[in-house]
C-alpha cells in the first residue's frame, strides 16, 4: 500500500541511478524543444521541433524512470506533484533549469519526509507516504483553488 525507503539497498539505488543517468541527459538536452511544445504543437513545429518524436521518446523515458523507482519503493504520493510546482514557482518555466531543479527539489523533499517519518515517533517508523501526503494534500488543494486558470 504505502511505499517506503525501508527496503532500499546500495544495489537498488545503483540500478535507479543508472537508469536516471541514461534518461535525464536526453530530457535536459531536449529542454528547448519541450519549452517550445509548451507554446503549442504548431509553434513547436514552426520552430523546427519534431513534435511527435520528441513527445513519444520523452514519454517512454519518463515512464521508464518512474516505473523503475516505483518498483523498488512502492508508491510514495505527491512528490511528483509538489516538487515541479515548487520549482516552477521559484525559477520559472524554462525546462533547461526546471528539469534538473525539480529532480533536486524532489530528492530533498523525499529525504526530508523520510527523516521526519523515522524520527517523529521513534522508534516506530512511519511510512514515508504519510509524511509526503501531509505536505502534498494541502498543496494540492491550494493549487486547485488558486491556480486553476494557469496552465499545467
Amino acid at each position, binding site marked *: 500500500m504505502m511505499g517506503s525507503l525501508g527496503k532500499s539497498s546500495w544495489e537498488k539505488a545503483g540500478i535507479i541511478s543508472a537508469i536516471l543517468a541514461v534518461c535525464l541527459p536526453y530530457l535536459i*538536452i531536449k*529542454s*528547448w524543444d519541450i519549452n517550445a511544445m509548451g507554446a*503549442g504543437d504548431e*509553434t513547436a513545429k*514552426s520552430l*523546427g521541433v*519534431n513534435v511527435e518524436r520528441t513527445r513519444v521518446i520523452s514519454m517512454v523515458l519518463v515512464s521508464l524512470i518512474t516505473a523503475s523507482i516505483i518498483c523498488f519503493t512502492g508508491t510514495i504520493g505527491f512528490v511528483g506533484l509538489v516538487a515541479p510546482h515548487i520549482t516552477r514557482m521559484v525559477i520559472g518555466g*524554462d525546462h533547461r533549469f526546471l528539469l534538473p531543479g525539480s529532480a533536486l527539489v524532489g530528492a530533498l523533499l523525499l529525504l526530508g519526509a523520510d527523516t521526519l517519518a523515522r524520527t517523529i515517533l521513534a522508534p516506530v517508523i512511519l511510512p514515508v507516504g504519510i509524511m509526503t501526503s501531509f505536505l502534498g494534500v494541502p498543496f494540492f488543494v491550494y493549487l486547485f483553488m488558486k491556480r486553476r486558470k494557469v496552465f*499545467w
Partner: protein
Amino acid sequence: MVNITIKSLTFGYNGSMILDNLNLVVEDSEVLGLVGPNGSGKTTLIKCMDKILKPKGSILIDGRDIDTVSRTELAKRLGYVPQSSSTPLATTVFDTVLMGRRPHISWRVSDSDLDKVADILGLLHLEYLAMRDFSQLSGGQKQKVLIARALAQEPEVLLLDEPTSSLDMKHQLEVMETISSLVKEKKISAVMALHDLNLASMFVDKLAILKGGKIYAAGEPIDLLNAKNIRDVYGVEAVVMNNLDRPYIVPLRSLNEGVA
C-alpha cells in the same frame, strides 16, 4: 533571395476539401497578401507552407521539396507567426523571443543569441516589455512579440496568419507598417492571410484571392480589387473608391441568394 513554388496542393479533413489543386508562386522581397472569405483556405495554406500540416501536392523552396528539408532547416528559412489569441505562453517576452533562436542553438545560449534577441526587441520597440509576462500583454503587443520571435529565427520568409485580427485601428496599422518596413530593410518576403481588404490594398505588393481552396485570381491589388471580384468571391455588393491611388472598398450589403 528565395522562391517558393506551390504546385497542385490539395488538403482536406474527413472528405471536405479545404485546398483544392492550388498553385501559387512567391517571389523575392515582396509582401504577398492572401485574402478570401472564411474557410477559403488562407490559414491552411500558410500552415501547409510551414509543414505544420501535411498536404498532397508539392511545395518547393528554391526548387527543393519541403518534404526533403528537415524541420530545423526549414525553421531557419521560414518564420511562422501564429494568431496571438491562440498562443498560450507562460514566460517573459525576452524568453519568448529567445525561443525563436531554437533552430540555431542546441542547448547553450551564446552571448550573440542574446544580443540578437535584444536587437530585435529594439527594432520593434519592445525593449520596455522584455521582462513582462507574455500573458499580461495586450493583443497588439502580443502580435509584435510573436513577429519578433519569428524574426529571431532569421528567416527569409515570414508567414503570418491574420496578424491584424482582433487589433484596433492604430495597432492594425502599426503591425502592418512594422511588417512592410521589415520586408524592405531585411530584404525578406512576407506571406500573410488577411481579412481586411483595405489593409491589404494599402500594404501588400501582390494579392492572391482564394475561393473554395483555389486561387481565384492573383496579381496587383489595383487590378484585383474591383466590385465584380468582391461580388463573386465574397457575395457582397461593394463600391470601390480611389484612395491615394489605392483601391478602397466600401461594402454595401450582402447578396444572399434566395433572400428578397
